[in-house]
């Protein structure tokens, strides 16, 4: 379902030289599979997720999702593909403050070709236990509730892949487990592959498959430098 081959990513330095960030020979995630990507802070985890989501272009390689190679696609096509096939849960939830919980979920459907389905959005919010908070804005939701809205938003378009970038980083330990459980259960229910980035061992230990970024990224291996 997700296949990365020889993905390289570097950034230009002010002096004109290139700083290599990623050199991933291969990473594959099957449909419905739940994988943790672990690594040191600043090791390139977020960059890798951005590359997979098409938010950042890669220098070379192949990023295939559901059989379609995203590398080389025009930006607008990548945007549309991301809207339809990839869900994103951010470290800071990133709910839009001007919108209610229901509207934040519907926002996930706005940029796809399909018609917005308020029923689907409401059902998802109900599944994450927020059926009584549909019209509340993020400012009146607790941290845990905000993250649940973010999960519902990420799943609303029935994606094949959900990318979660340290979703428990800003949550107190008491709520971390709830978020992890929610993500895993929701992805299981929706048959969505989950690639979860974390540097928290307690979270990573719950997953059957854990990929160490340093193990799959030649840049980290060779330099040993935290990028």
């Amino acid at each position, binding site marked *: 379902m997700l296949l990365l081959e020889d993905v390289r990513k570097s950034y230009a330095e002010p002096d004109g030289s290139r700083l290599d960030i990623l050199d991933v020979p291969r990473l594959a995630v099957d449909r419905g599979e739940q994988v943790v990507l672990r690594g040191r802070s600043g090791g390139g985890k977020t960059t890798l997720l951005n590359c997979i*989501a098409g938010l950042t272009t890669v220098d070379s390689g192949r990023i295939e999702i559901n059989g379609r190679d995203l590398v080389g696609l025009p*930006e607008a096509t990548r945007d549309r593909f*991301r809207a339809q096939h990839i869900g*994103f849960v951010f470290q800071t939830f990133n709910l839009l403050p*001007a919108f209610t919980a229901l509207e934040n979920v519907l*926002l996930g459907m706005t940029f796809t070709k399909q018609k917005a389905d308020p029923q689907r959005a409401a059902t998802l919010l109900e599944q994450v236990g927020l059926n009584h908070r549909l019209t509340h804005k993020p400012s009146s939701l607790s941290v845990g509730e905000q993250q649940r809205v973010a999960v519902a*938003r990420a799943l609303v378009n029935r994606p094949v892949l959900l990318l979660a970038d340290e979703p428990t980083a800003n949550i107190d330990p008491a709520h971390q487990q709830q978020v992890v459980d929610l993500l895993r259960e929701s992805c299981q229910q929706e048959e969505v592959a989950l690639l979860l980035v974390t540097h928290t061992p307690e979270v990573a230990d719950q997953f059957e498959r854990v990929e160490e970024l340093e193990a799959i990224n030649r840049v980290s291996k060779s330099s040993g430098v935290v990028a």
Partner: protein
Amino acid sequence: MSFWKIAWRNLQQRALASTLTAFSMALGVALMILVLVIHGVVVNQLTNDAQGYHVIVGGGKGSKFEVVLSTVFHLGTPLYPVSYSYYEKFVDGGEYAPYTEAAIPICLGDSYEANDGTRLRVVATTPDMFSKISYAADKQYEFAEGENFQRENYYEAVLGSVAAYKTGLGVGDKFRPAHGISSDQGDHDKFTVVGVLAPTGTANDRAMFINMEGFYLQEGHALSAKTAVQRPVVLGSKVASGSGLNVGDKLPSKAEGEARSSVLAVLGPTGTSNDQLVFAPSEGYELPKTATSTTEKPLPLAADGTKPLPRAQREVTSILVLCKSPFYAGEIDRQINKGIDRTVQVVAPRGVVAQLADGFLAPMRMILLVLTIMIVVVAGISILVSIYNSMSERSHDIAVMRALGAKRSAVMLIVLFESVLLALLGGIAGMLLGHGILAVASPIVERYTGVMVAPWQTSPEEWLLVPGLLVFAALVGFLPALTAYRTDVAKTLSGGR
């Protein structure tokens, strides 16, 4: 969820800033509406005032603007008068009577001080003023109270609606006009109000109309017997044919106040130099009583037996002439203005008003419009500043939308929609505000000035505002929209701006 809704929600999120920005736009648009409507009202007012008749016959001295200003708008100083005999050319078998549907004599020179200190014009005329001619576009004068005055009741008066309000006079009340236009130079006899006109939206609302016969009998209004003596002359045949003068016509005067001679007879061709001469009686000549025409229609006697002022001692300031057809107006204009008699002139008031509107009001309107457009532009820039300033704090939201699959063009469009919504809401609020101000002010303005304002009437230019604002909003929204377009998603989501 539509982009419009997203844009609206973003505006709601910054409710105070959005409201203030829209309000500044509303003020600009309201000012523009006021300029447009007030200009329209002024032009309508001018046009309405000059309707109901085709031409004005006024004194030959002074410009046609002065004739229109004094006769139509009751402004300025009354001009050099026209002889009563000239007025009679338009009535009862006179020279121009075949062309004339109605001829209304106007005598100016009196005024009356209203309760607020303003001086209202007293216009002496005949009852035909309100029965034979109309005002504005074929509207007949109506009486809000009482009725028209009667010609044989010399001391009756009719008040315009504003004049009645400002003086507090009503039917049955008496008032004493003052001699003079701008200052009280002595009181006249009392006139009784018999009618109050319904508002017309013309300058006549601010005037007090009295019976011309009563006016003539007031001190200072009759020509002295000496002045009134017109030494008759006899014209040689070539003089008559060359000048166009005929029996009963007056010779042009050489100086103001000079007695004007009237043509008593025209000699037949003699083939001598006498054909080129004007024969006048020597000094000390007195008009024999037998010289008064016996074919003249008798002047109306007063119901109370008061004798009217003799014709020879009468003058009128001007004559409103309603022709039987507009074509005849041209004919009268040609015959009088192209003739030898320079003591009178014919003025087509609508043409003069159009010139006045084009020459004076149009540039004023342009200046005011430019000023208000600048205000709207400043308001537009405030939209730009408002949205642009919000971009840095919203870059994260924009990045999130991009991460959710929004194209660059989509986020750009959303920001443009915000600008359009602000301009549109400000514009609509401005239109309502502008017309609302007019709705509140119009009854007061009408009561005090007689100027009728239709507060909710819109002009075509006003409807051009809406698409104009849309284009303008798109222009001012472009810069912040471009900022949204260029947002670096990965960098912004990772904490960079």
